[in-house]
């Protein structure tokens, strides 16, 4: 392994995080909060250490897939450990493990919280929480790729390790330009939401924090009631933007490149929206009796479905109190998640489509053993290696869910709580069912379980394999 170049990239990431940490300082300055000093100290420390690391000479530029995967996993771990320091230093989260859980939950756009009361947070800390959602949504390394001249062949390995989806492609020939386009689209969507929320009557601070949490499909809110206490207009805007951010960003690029026909033809987006529609309608009928009229029921159901399938994790109602059918539908769509190439988590719709189609082919080939059938998606043949990876991915996914659930069961909570806690963290959603439902939080879990769930979040965000490689010492040897 080429450690010198990995240190170079990791230092860049650290320096970038230092720069990001200056943003809460600005917030603290505006609102006159003393907590800003903690952020400033951590920011300066990261910038200096990162800067020094970057100044070291890179001995060799050799950078392959393995280096890419390890670099990305380590970056996320370092980012989380450093990003947790301010919460700990300000004393707002007295336990460092809790602070790390909260930060990982932010960067991985999970939005699960260990805080019983989020309203006690200072404005700068709350801003930092939501900002971690935003930057984690598209990925810090993608931003580093967009800005820094990391010329050379290795940027694709980094991009592939960080971006979600079964096969990561580029929009344009250059990784740098691709990363810039992605962040451009992302920033544009976020800005649009800020404007709309402000028109709907929100203050600038609220609008920008909530927009960041929505765009990253993160789900950190400012109030204990999440989005429940806001007006219907705000809830509708947030529903729409959650869905927008969980659609493959390729679609927006096609719109931008004036190919609306191809954009609308995107199979993954259609399936995604279809799942959203069906789930919403079923849940609406299921819960209609609990609401004054069917429109409120529909709007509430739509919000919850969007929030769960996009893996955002906002809530406007306590869906844990809903009938069993609705609860199980919500738990199932947790598993599917958003589209590939979006900010959403979960298994990803494209993987779901590929697996479903390969299953269909398998059934055909059982009855017609000589049949030859390829899997098609978006009008193209999906290569066998992608199908194989998707199948392995699913298997790894199931194993992780089962093992994690067994391990955290040590704490003695009921199975709904444990399974949904694992599903909600591993798929980067946030709230689950039972004790970790929309009104609950993760604070009751033991330190050990919190560490497991923290790892689940990281593994889920980076799509399993990068973190697995980090934990297999054989791979790490030269």
């Amino acid at each position, binding site marked *: 392994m080429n450690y010198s170049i990995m240190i170079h990239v990791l230092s860049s990431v650290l320096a970038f995080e230092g720069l990001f940490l200056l943003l809460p300082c600005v917030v603290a300055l505006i609102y006159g909060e003393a907590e800003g000093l903690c952020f400033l100290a951590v920011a300066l420390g990261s910038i200096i250490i990162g800067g020094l690391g970057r100044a070291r000479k890179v001995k060799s530029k050799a950078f392959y897939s393995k280096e890419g995967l390890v670099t990305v996993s380590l970056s996320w771990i370092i980012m989380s450990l450093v990003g947790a320091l301010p919460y700990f230093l300000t004393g707002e989260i007295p336990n460092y493990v809790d602070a790390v859980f909260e930060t990982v939950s932010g960067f991985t756009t999970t939005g699960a919280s260990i805080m019983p009361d989020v309203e006690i947070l200072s404005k700068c800390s709350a801003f930092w929480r939501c900002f971690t959602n935003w930057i984690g949504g598209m990925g810090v390394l993608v931003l580093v790729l967009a800005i820094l001249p990391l*010329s050379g*062949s290795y940027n694709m*390995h980094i991009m592939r390790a960080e971006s979600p989806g079964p096969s990561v*492609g580029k929009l344009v020939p250059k*990784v*740098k*330009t691709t990363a810039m386009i992605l962040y451009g689209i992302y920033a544009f969507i976020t800005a649009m939401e800020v404007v709309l929320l402000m028109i709907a009557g929100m203050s600038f601070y609220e609008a920008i924090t909530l927009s960041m949490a929505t765009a990253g499909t993160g789900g950190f809110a400012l109030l204990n009631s999440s989005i429940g206490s806001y007006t219907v207009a705000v809830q509708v805007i947030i529903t729409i933007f959650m869905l927008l951010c969980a659609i493959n960003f390729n679609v927006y690029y096609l719109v931008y490149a004036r190919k609306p026909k191809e954009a609308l033809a995107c199979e993954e987006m259609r399936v995604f929206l279809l799942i959203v529609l069906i789930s919403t309608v079923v849940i609406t009928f299921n819960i209609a009796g609990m609401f004054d009229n069917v429109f409120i029921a529909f709007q509430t159901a739509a919000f919850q479905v969007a929030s769960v399938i996009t893996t955002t994790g906002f809530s406007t109602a306590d869906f844990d109190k809903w009938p069993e059918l609705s609860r199980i539908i919500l738990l199932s769509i947790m598993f599917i998640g958003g589209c590939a190439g979006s900010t959403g988590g979960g298994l990803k719709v494209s993987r779901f489509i590929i697996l479903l189609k390969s299953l269909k082919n398998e059934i055909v080939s059982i009855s017609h053993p000589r049949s030859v059938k390829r899997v098609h998606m978006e009008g193209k043949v999906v290569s066998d290696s992608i199908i194989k990876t998707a199948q392995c991915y699913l298997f790894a996914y199931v194993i992780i869910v089962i093992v994690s659930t067994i391990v955290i069961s040590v704490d003695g909570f009921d199975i709904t709580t444990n399974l949904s806690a694992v599903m909600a963290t591993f798929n980067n959603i946030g709230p689950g069912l039972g004790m970790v439902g929309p009104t609950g939080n993760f604070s009751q879990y033991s330190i050990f379980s919190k560490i497991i769930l923290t790892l689940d979040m990281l593994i889920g965000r980076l799509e399993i394999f990068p973190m697995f490689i980090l934990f297999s010492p054989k791979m790490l040897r030269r």
Partner: protein
Amino acid sequence: MKIIIVGCGNVGSTLAEQLSKEGYDITIIDAKEQLVNNLTNTFDVLGVVGNGASLGVQIEAGVKEADLLIAVTRSDELNLLCCLIAKKAGGCHTIARVSSPVYSKEIGFIKDELGLSLIINPQRAAAREMSRILKFPSALKIDSFAKSRVDLISYLIEEGSPLCDISLKDLRIKIGCDVLIPIVERGTEVIIPDGNFVLKAKDEISILAESRNAVDFFKKLGEPTAAVKDAMIIGGGRTCIYLASQLIDMGIKVKIIEKDKARCEELSELMPKALIIHGDGTEREVLMEEGILQTNAFVSLTNFDEENIMLALFAKSLTKAKLITKVHRISYDNIVDNLELGSIIYPKYLTAEIITKYVRAMHNSMGSNIETLYMLNDNRVEALEFLIKEDSPVIGIPLIDLELKPNILIGCITHRGQVIIPNGQSKIEAGDTVILVTTTHGLHDIQDALKLV
């Protein structure tokens, strides 16, 4: 600039590497998914899997927005078809690789009628490079600048050469010749030397001089300056045909050893003046019998790199003949270079180099002032020819007062067709062309060479 490359073989991947590093937007097309994946994993390029001659595939690769399509698959016909379709679909410039001798005589017609910008024939390009070296056997490699008025010649200093232990500022006095040494390769290091630099044996130097001065210079060194009188070529492939015909036209006696009888007859039909020997050129006895000891030049052109290198090593041990060796595989070029086999020709490198040159020239016509550009010494050195415009800040200043960035040297000024090897007092005028030699990449104009004030 957006470029599509069809075919990810050796040439295609070399091109993709080189052009993507130079900052162009590259999309590659190949029917083999594995090849495309390998390239997109290693270089910053976009890959499309499919038949490059299909319109759908080309549109997916963005032919409508592309500025240039380069077709370098194995098949000549496919290459031509790719270019034809790209031309009609996107109206972009097109470059095709066409290597069959059957088409080579009609290349002008094909190029004009199909509207191609450039047709490249690797074997012919290799043959041309070889014949140029045989014309001037002291050189390892020759590049021409300023409409062929100036040559840049690589030369290896041998033990006991008059150049040993001479510092560059004494060069003019001691040798008495108007030449400049802008690049020295010592071991693995490439140096842009200054006046105090002392030459040593085993240095590979590049000499920049007006063509006739170069001849003068080599005469003073006691090196042969006339073309070789006869050449022995092993292997009668396409390159051999191109090379032998060129050598025969130059009046050089050619002896070709080829092991296939039918091929020998074909060669004899094509080139009645050549002496064709039917025999295995890798057999020691055959070589001895056919006079390897007396020949002036020994060219190994079989289809196997290993054989070519073995043959060259064998010839090197026996004679002082000028050696030219063809090597296809480019990944091990540093090992081959260490064998000191004289001139080594990499046809694939050469193809990539010619196309890269064309791309640069095309890019330049879109904005910067580079007239020609050569990548030298394994791409570590660039020699660039700039046209000086009237508003350039370098005009009228003696070179000694120009603050250049480190590792940049002004090698030559062409003033109204007059070639000047400059000294500290020389000045650059508007309309001159200037050749810069530098290890810094990415200069686009002569201003970029100046230290920032």
